[in-house]
């Protein structure tokens, strides 16, 4: 007998809004968080825009002694974790949560300090210039470790790295562990802070980023015929998962029940999605099976929708393969049109967006969708939010390395 698992806390630090209220207002009003890069001087870079988290002060969320020892990716994660824990009204001394876990997704870990160390070494031509604190700052599990240390959470502690699906993958893993009774509660989600001099240059070199340089807010245009790549973003999305019975017993807010998790690997290519969409369709089928639902039960799909030529066509095909004739009836939108691609955080921030949609009866739009692509022919909720009561939402996340992860959430 497996346990029913619910979402009881939401914490989000996104380029267009911090905290569930601001973020909800932003995504339902179509607010873009994309602008020119400010974290370093992008003058020499072929790409000059990104979705940065603005006016974020880590000191608002953690002691100075933690702030100074952590990379930006961990700071964003600590902030989102604090927001989620506060939102869930969690008492971490509660006996119910003695066996709690922290399971976080991150595609890249701590780039800021890694790059700083490299630059210091090469500028001085002296390997002894490496700061001693680099390794503990850049380790991907610095984020889960610091969350554990801040809140005294002593159960399973993991960081999962499956590129762009890391956040959703982490939530799926936490979901599995709670329903099997392995853990009593999880602080889970995804984080990323990739807007750093070297990492940004590397993404630009890969030719996956939009080259838009005049109107940053129009650069991310998933499913639009003129789309030319994604916008690199940063942020964190953390949620609290716990069994339904503990949530009810302590009178916690319940945003949604996590119903299904589908995950597979297309074993196709490290960067390019399989254009047939068959592997992603299979992940969708796995999630539907896991949730014990039919195609027609899905009321909304939060798409991976990166705004690259390859993803958006392959994802459209995957949805059509999995849902057949019903595909065109399901509203499907991409909030990456507003927050760019936050890599390891994306799947978690999007799962949070699904929770907000289920609770507010609104579907966030795909902004910048003005020219139809004949190969992208679903209902993408263009440009304006839609008011519609939805019961069940699906969130797609597809990562480099053909990693496909699908989550299904239901309003309770």
């Amino acid at each position, binding site marked *: 007998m497996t346990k029913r698992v619910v979402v009881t806390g939401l914490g989000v630090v996104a380029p267009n809004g911090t905290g569930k209220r601001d973020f909800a207002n932003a995504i339902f009003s179509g607010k873009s968080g994309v602008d020119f890069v400010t974290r370093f001087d992008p003058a020499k870079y072929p790409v000059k825009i990104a979705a940065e988290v603005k006016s974020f002060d880590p*000191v608002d969320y953690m002691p*100075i*002694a933690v*702030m*100074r*020892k952590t990379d930006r990716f961990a700071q964003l994660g600590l902030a989102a974790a604090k927001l989620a824990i506060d939102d869930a009204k969690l008492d971490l001394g509660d006996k119910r949560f003695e066996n709690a876990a922290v399971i976080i997704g991150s595609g890249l870990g701590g780039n800021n300090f890694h790059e700083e160390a490299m630059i210091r070494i090469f500028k001085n031509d002296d390997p*002894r*210039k490496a*700061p*001693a*604190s680099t390794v*503990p700052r850049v380790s991907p599990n610095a984020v889960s470790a610091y969350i554990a240390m801040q809140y005294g959470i002593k159960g399973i502690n993991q960081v999962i790295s499956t590129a762009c699906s890391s956040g959703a993958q982490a939530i799926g893993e936490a979901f599995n562990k709670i329903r099997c009774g392995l853990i009593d509660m999880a602080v889970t989600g995804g984080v990323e802070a990739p807007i750093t001099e070297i990492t940004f240059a590397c993404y630009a070199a890969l030719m996956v980023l939009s080259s838009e340089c005049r109107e940053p807010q129009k650069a991310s245009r998933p499913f639009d015929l003129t789309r030319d790549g994604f916008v690199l973003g940063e942020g964190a999305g953390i949620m609290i998962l716990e069994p339904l019975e503990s949530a009810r017993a302590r009178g916690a807010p319940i945003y949604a029940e996590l119903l299904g998790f589908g995950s597979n690997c297309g074993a196709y290519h490290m960067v390019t999605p399989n254009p047939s969409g068959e592997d992603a369709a299979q992940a969708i089928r796995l999630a539907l099976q896991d949730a014990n639902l039919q195609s027609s039960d899905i009321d909304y799909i939060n798409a991976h929708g990166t705004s690259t030529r390859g993803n958006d066509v392959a994802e459209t095909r995957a949805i059509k393969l999995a849902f057949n004739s019903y595909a065109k009836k399901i509203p499907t939108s991409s909030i990456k049109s507003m927050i760019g691609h936050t890599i390891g955080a994306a799947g978690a921030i999007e799962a949070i967006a699904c929770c907000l949609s289920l609770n507010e009866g609104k579907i966030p739009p795909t902004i910048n969708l003005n020219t139809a692509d004949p190969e992208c022919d679903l209902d993408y909720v263009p440009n304006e939010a839609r008011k519609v009561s939805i019961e069940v939402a699906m969130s797609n996340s597809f990562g480099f390395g053909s990693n496909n992860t699908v989550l299904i959430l239901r309003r309770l």
Partner: protein
Amino acid sequence: MAEPELSREAIFEELKSLLVDLLKTMREKDPEKRPVISWDTDLVDELGIDSVETLDVLNAIEDRFDINPDIHEANSKRTVGEIVDYIIELKKSKR
């Protein structure tokens, strides 16, 4: 030409600015909670530096004062004043 000799007070001020910079003490929003760095401030108990940060502080001191502190000996110095005297001792032995 040899560098002019730094006074004990000047070394203290330099070390203080190095610590403020490295330990980000001025980032504390509440001025009342902002640590005051004086001669007898204890780096571990009062400024909360851990074993890894000690290594970073040591590297920064090495760079700023052009000395080669011995890690074990440096580790036995706990207060700002003790470190200032250690820096003076090393600068003298270098001369």
